[in-house]
């Protein structure tokens, strides 16, 4: 690893002041403004925001990125379009976004260290890593009515027979765009842009009303 390769990029820990600076999730405004209906026994969909995770965009050749990721996080890069995979703990995921672009999501506070280790491992290969943690947030939707809720919201076919666990697509959600992922039999995830988070949240509350949607905080 040459020092020169690392010194070409401005790598800094965007969460370094986490202890002294109050952080707000993209939904902070929505909690105040729109509230959060508590889940009940009748809830067929339960929404939860997975706040302050590390989101990294990896770009480059699949082979070099795959080798680096296996070494650093022990996850293989998904090579098939519109798929994602998790590490053994299930806490870290890597998703195909485009033939040369993947989204890596790691637990909060890990992004800086992971980015640094990937950069060291990738060295002079042709690649790009961008920390987009502040720009988007992950929502989980759990319950048997989630596909019905999504059918009203996205243009993609989310019928469970067409959308197996481990699939993830970037698509149109209402008048915005989101990434839709299925992480379990009745568990789905939405990656929502910060600027659209309030809109998507209120859309979900409205569309989920008939399934008695509840929000866990």
């Amino acid at each position, binding site marked *: 690893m040459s020092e020169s390769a690392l010194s070409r990029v401005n790598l800094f820990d965007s969460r370094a002041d986490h202890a002294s600076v109050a952080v707000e999730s993209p939904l902070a405004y929505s909690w105040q403004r729109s509230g959060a209906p508590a889940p009940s026994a009748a809830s067929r969909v339960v929404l939860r925001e997975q706040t302050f995770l590390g989101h990294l965009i990896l770009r480059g050749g699949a082979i070099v990125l795959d080798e680096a990721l296996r070494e650093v996080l022990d996850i293989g890069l998904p090579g098939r*379009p519109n798929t994602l995979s998790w590490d053994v703990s299930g806490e870290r995921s890597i998703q195909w976004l485009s*033939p040369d*672009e993947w989204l890596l999501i790691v637990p909060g506070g890990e992004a800086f260290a992971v980015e640094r280790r990937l950069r060291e491992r990738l060295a002079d290969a042709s690649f790009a890593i961008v920390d987009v943690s502040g720009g988007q947030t992950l929502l989980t939707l759990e319950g048997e009515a989630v596909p019905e809720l999504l059918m009203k919201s996205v243009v993609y076919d989310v019928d469970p027979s067409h959308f197996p666990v481990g699939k993830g697509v970037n*698509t149109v959600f209402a008048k915005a765009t989101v990434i839709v992922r299925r992480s379990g039999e009745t568990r789905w995830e939405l990656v929502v842009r910060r600027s659209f988070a309030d809109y998507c949240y209120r859309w979900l509350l409205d569309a989920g009303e008939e399934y008695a949607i509840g929000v866990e905080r």
Partner: protein
Amino acid sequence: MFQIYCPYCEELREEEEFHPKGQAHIVRPANPEACSDEEWGDYLFFRDNPRGIHHELWVHAVGCRKFFNVTRHTVSYAILETYKIGEQPSVTAEPAVSESTTSTDDVRQGVRA
């Protein structure tokens, strides 16, 4: 429901996720300095407007955000194939009358209607 096959996502996706970007396979002159004004103007501003087969550039704007090519029939609007950037089209001529329902007669009627 109108779906387009994205050669990068390798599946049919809703038309809402795509944008057309004009004529495909426009080659930039190798030596712009040596071009006449007419040649350069042709390259920059003038596009084909055929009746029939047309090769176009599209982008999967909301999906993988990759550009790709579409061969489209400008009369029937039928998409005949989609293929990746850097590849050549396999459909370059009107299908023969006996082979397809898009016969010359149908095409003419489509125009009249």
